């Protein structure tokens, strides 16, 4: 299996964490659907990336999972954010905002602005 580029993978992890933070415990399909909805269906979440990522996050201790019943009473595996995951989310959000701000400033700069 070829890995996807880091940025994408890192972004997806952040999106998953944020989704769980906002929605609370959620199953895999729900997470994928939610990310697609928020992106305005511009993003198509690849399940081949999502499930290994969920496993990785679980191994790292950012999320935890257990079997539960879905809205229509089906057996589904629910993922939720752990305390460590919440901390990680906050840290990564800060980092991401910083990066985004820097990039934004680069785009804003015009030639005449430079001394």
């Amino acid at each position, binding site marked *: *299996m070829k890995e996807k580029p880091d940025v994408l993978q890192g972004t997806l992890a952040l999106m998953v964490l944020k989704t769980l933070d906002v929605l609370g415990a959620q*199953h*895999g*399909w*729900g997470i*994928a*659907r939610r990310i697609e909805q928020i992106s305005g269906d511009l993003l198509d979440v*690849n*399940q*081949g*990336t999502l*499930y*290994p990522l969920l*496993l*990785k996050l679980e*191994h*790292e*201790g950012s999320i935890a999972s257990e079997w539960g019943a*879905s809205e*229509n009473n*089906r*057996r*589904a*595996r629910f993922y939720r954010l752990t305390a460590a995951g919440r901390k990680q989310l906050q840290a990564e959000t800060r980092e991401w905002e910083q990066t985004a701000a820097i990039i934004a400033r680069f785009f804003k700069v015009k030639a005449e602005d430079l001394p």
Partner: protein
Amino acid sequence: MKFLRRFFLRVTNLATGRGADQRLQDELAEHLALQIEENLRAGMSSAEARRQAALKLGAVQAIREGHHDEQSLPFIENLLFDLRYAVRMLLRSPGFSFIAIATMALGIGATTAIYSVIDATLLHPLPYPNPTELVLLEGDLPGVGARDVGISVPEWRDLESSGIFRSVSVSGTGADVNLTGSAQPERLSYKHVTPNFFAVFGVDAQLGRTFDPHDATPGFNLEAVISDGLWKREFGADPHIVGKALRLDNDLYHVVGVMPRGFRDLGSTSEERNTEIWLAAGMAGAPFPPPLRGSRLQSRTVARLMPGLSIVAAQGRLDALVASLKKQYPAEYPSQTAWTVRLIPLSENVVGSVRPSLLLLFGAVGLVLLISCVNVANLLLARASGRGREIAVRQALGAQRTRLIRQFLAESLLLFLLGGIAGFAILFFARKFLLQLVPESLPHLNDISINWGVLGFALAVSVAAGTVFGLAPAWLMTRFDLIGTLRQEGRGSSGSRERSRARQILVISELALSLVLMVAAGLLLRSFRDLFQVQPGFNPARVMAVQTWLPGPNDPSADIYRTATQESVLLREILRRSRTLPGVEEAAVGDTTALPLGHSDGDLNPLPLLREGIETMDNQAPVIASPIVSPEYFHLLGMPLERGRLFNDRDLEDAPPVAIINQAAARMYWPKQDPVGKRVRLRLDSREPLRSAKPAWTTIVGVIADARTESLADAAIPQIYRSVYQHPAKSLAIFLRGQLDPSDLSAQVRSQVQAVDATLPVFHAETLDDVLASSLSVRRFSMEMVAFFAATALLLAGLGIYGTISYVVNEQRREIAIRLALGAQRGNILKMVLRRGLGLAAAGAGLGVAGALLVSHLMAGLLFGVSPNDLTTFAGVTIVLTGVALAASYIPALRAMRLDPITTLHSE
């Protein structure tokens, strides 16, 4: 942290197995169901909803794989797969596997066996804390050709306060003492030591204490420390032994401590090695000579260097100290003697003498290991030719080359490891038997063990050899023209040229290596035979020696055998009674120095030799070995008189002292002169009680022929013999010649000796033939081992060349069949195949001779009477090797000759 956590989870997942995959499948099924519901809600038909959902989910297998990669450790999993596959491959061809594993078991087992010996001796020579700090100090007088002259008490004090050493101990070279009061008067090895002796070694007593290092008693302080062995044997491991009295040579000592089991005194003499009692003495008061610079003690000086000081640096500072002492006391250190003190690592002293033999063995066994590895590599390559099609098909199906190499490597590693484990197991179960083969004279024989370290060595060697010798065949196996192989394979053409060239190179190197080993074995064999045939200059046949020891109490007036006249009564009676024993034809006595070959340097007790009109002081004089013998000695040992006369009945204590020298002494000290009639003085004879009068001049009355009484391998050393009726000796050997039964003799002699004096111990009866054989035992051991290794190597090389030629014949059977069909003579086919074998043998022999020349010069020190370039050995070995190569090629050649062209060509 996160990485570690993931790694551990993965390892547990690997162990727990499949559950995770099942969970994912459930989850994906759930995912699909949710997506279908969503699609239905969006208004799709049920079939379309299902189709779209499946499309959106993508390939389930790919998700599972991605999940699995995240879940576990692919590398280890692959390794397990490879191993499983390798086990299947080994089981599929059991004959091949057995031969390969047996070959490796032989190679690794033999290497490990020799390693266990080296581990116990060369790698761990000293069982003391910080052994590298321990050094031996030897004083030499190179100006007069004297070595190891001992040390005087003032010199010892100078060394102690020099700041070079943490502590310096002086000890006697070991001697015997009679322990009386037990059932049988027993002779024990004792050693007098300075009180700091045990502190230098850094070993404490297991019971009681050792000596107080600051004890300043000038003579013996009457304290004794005993060995664990003596404690258990003589005192039944009495827990209250401390404080009990011991009567040694009629002097009363009391026990202060028992050394722990396994503490051994590491001297170079056999007495020292077996020391069971240590007595503390300041060595500055009676019975020792007064502590003057000129009176050196026959002693051994062992010191512990200051921590962190290297031998070289310590030697530098010691040289400076010696130089300043010489300046300070010019009269005591005459410049012509050139007094120096050498530092020798103590380990060198213990195992230095066997190092060349052991390294030779290790080298030889290393070659055997190399040959067995080459043989197995060869087998692997041979098998590869049968698997060419399999490999090609797998590559065509997309198997990566690295993956294939890894898999072949797993196979060879498995083979080598199994071989290593088998070799180790055989070694472990045969260790008792194998240890019997090791000569008793090898130091640390009892420490040889098959332990975890040795197992680790065996496994490490297996893995290293498996990697190196598995990688090359794997590389060659997977490297070929895919299309060509697929097209050719199975049509009997010449196959991969590269592989067959590799096999030929392997066989050639095998032949070369075995030639090297065989030359080494041949040279050692010839040296050994020459040693046995060397004229020792004395006749050991039918001679036995039995030892006894006369007590020498510290107070000379208590000694009933103090003078030669007193002792001669005893000796004459012992000799008279010995001659009456059944089978005895001749009897003589001598001191232990007169025992041929049975002693090492330390027993020689060399004395300074002052020639009249040449030397005037002890410390200018060269030293000379000085046995004390009875007049019958020379005749009994068959040492012929060259000039002058032997001792006679008039050479008694009150007559002028006389001596007999050997030709070596005559040559060295009276070159081109007649030594008979010359007068000498021998000084510092520690075996004689101190006398106030200066020793009188001793006149040389005869010269006897040289005899190799020290070592068969070395020419005779200078000796001066004196009569036991003029100089009393304490450690005696009774020599008997005749039809003797060694098993009874000891008891018979004991009853005769103890009929004269019941307090005398009688021990260590041995035939001189045995002494002679055991003096050669380490040589014999290494010779036999190298010969065994060489035979193994030859066998392996023979198998190798047989395999290769068989392979070549098999590959060429189509060509041969065509030749035969076209009318080739069968004899020519035979010749063609044999020529192949001969070509390999010639190349191997050529390389081997070059290697053997190199090796034989490296081992020149172990050879005796044979040149390292010995033509006979080289030619003989080459002929044998060629013969074996031809014989091994003959079988496949016959097979080629008898090939039926019709069947062969049909079957292709």
